[in-house]
């Protein structure tokens, strides 16, 4: 078993959130800035698997532009199997919000 496999039986997929998720993710996730994007990597606060999320400010097709709400919503995007995960999605279903503050 790899060190990013925290549980023996996989958690079922569930779209759930908790304020503690955001607190743990803010402490655990590591941001990496690229041109046009920020990549956040860390352990999902629900399932514990490694999750990597790419945050962008714009994406092709302007009709799907992202509104600037001052925070970003992150999903668990781990590669582990979670029973019940709908087709086209991945992760355990956990989601939370983070604010990204750029410091000089």
């Amino acid at each position, binding site marked *: 078993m790899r060190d990013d496999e925290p549980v023996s039986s996989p958690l079922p997929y569930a779209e759930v959130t908790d304020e503690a998720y955001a607190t743990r993710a803010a402490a655990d996730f590591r941001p990496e800035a690229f041109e046009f994007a920020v990549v956040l990597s860390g352990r999902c606060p629900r399932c514990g698997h490694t999750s990597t999320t790419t945050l962008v400010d714009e994406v092709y*097709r302007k009709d799907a532009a992202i509104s600037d709400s001052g925070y970003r919503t992150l999903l668990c995007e781990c590669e582990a199997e979670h029973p019940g995960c709908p087709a086209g999605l991945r992760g355990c279903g956990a989601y939370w919000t983070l604010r990204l503050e750029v410091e000089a």
Partner: protein
Amino acid sequence: MIRLRPGPPATVADLRRAQQLAGLLRGELERVRAAAVAWRNGLGGLLVALVGFSLIRGRSDVSTLAPGWGALVGVLLLAALVAGVAGALALLRAAHGRLTVTPVAALPPAPLGDHLEAVAAVRSLRTGVGLVLLCTTLLVAAVGVTWYAPASPAARSPAVSLPVDAT
């Protein structure tokens, strides 16, 4: 440096928007490539129709134009050629990518690499569309000059007919 802080309690609307964005990001490069191929085919068809089927046609001999106007036609046609070739290359780059090899160490993590390529492809697509439209404009301008530019004095002078001796 980027610092992370907990955000407000997430809502289902936040979840749906994030899922939609994740889906858009995963298929972004394919959509850009498909759009670039469509633009390439459409603009290529436009140019073929204009030039290949002679929908616009000027004088075939620019030496009949007044001095200087023939040279202007040549400059316009040369500029149209340059713009057309550059536009075609930009459209091909948008549709099929660059002819380069990327060092493995420089590869960004997925799906960021695809997003960066999609952004570059959209830029090339915009550039290519603009250049091909510029090429078309220059072609039309060149043909317009051959239509409306004054003729050379030699071409304007009446033809002299010699009397025919019947004997």
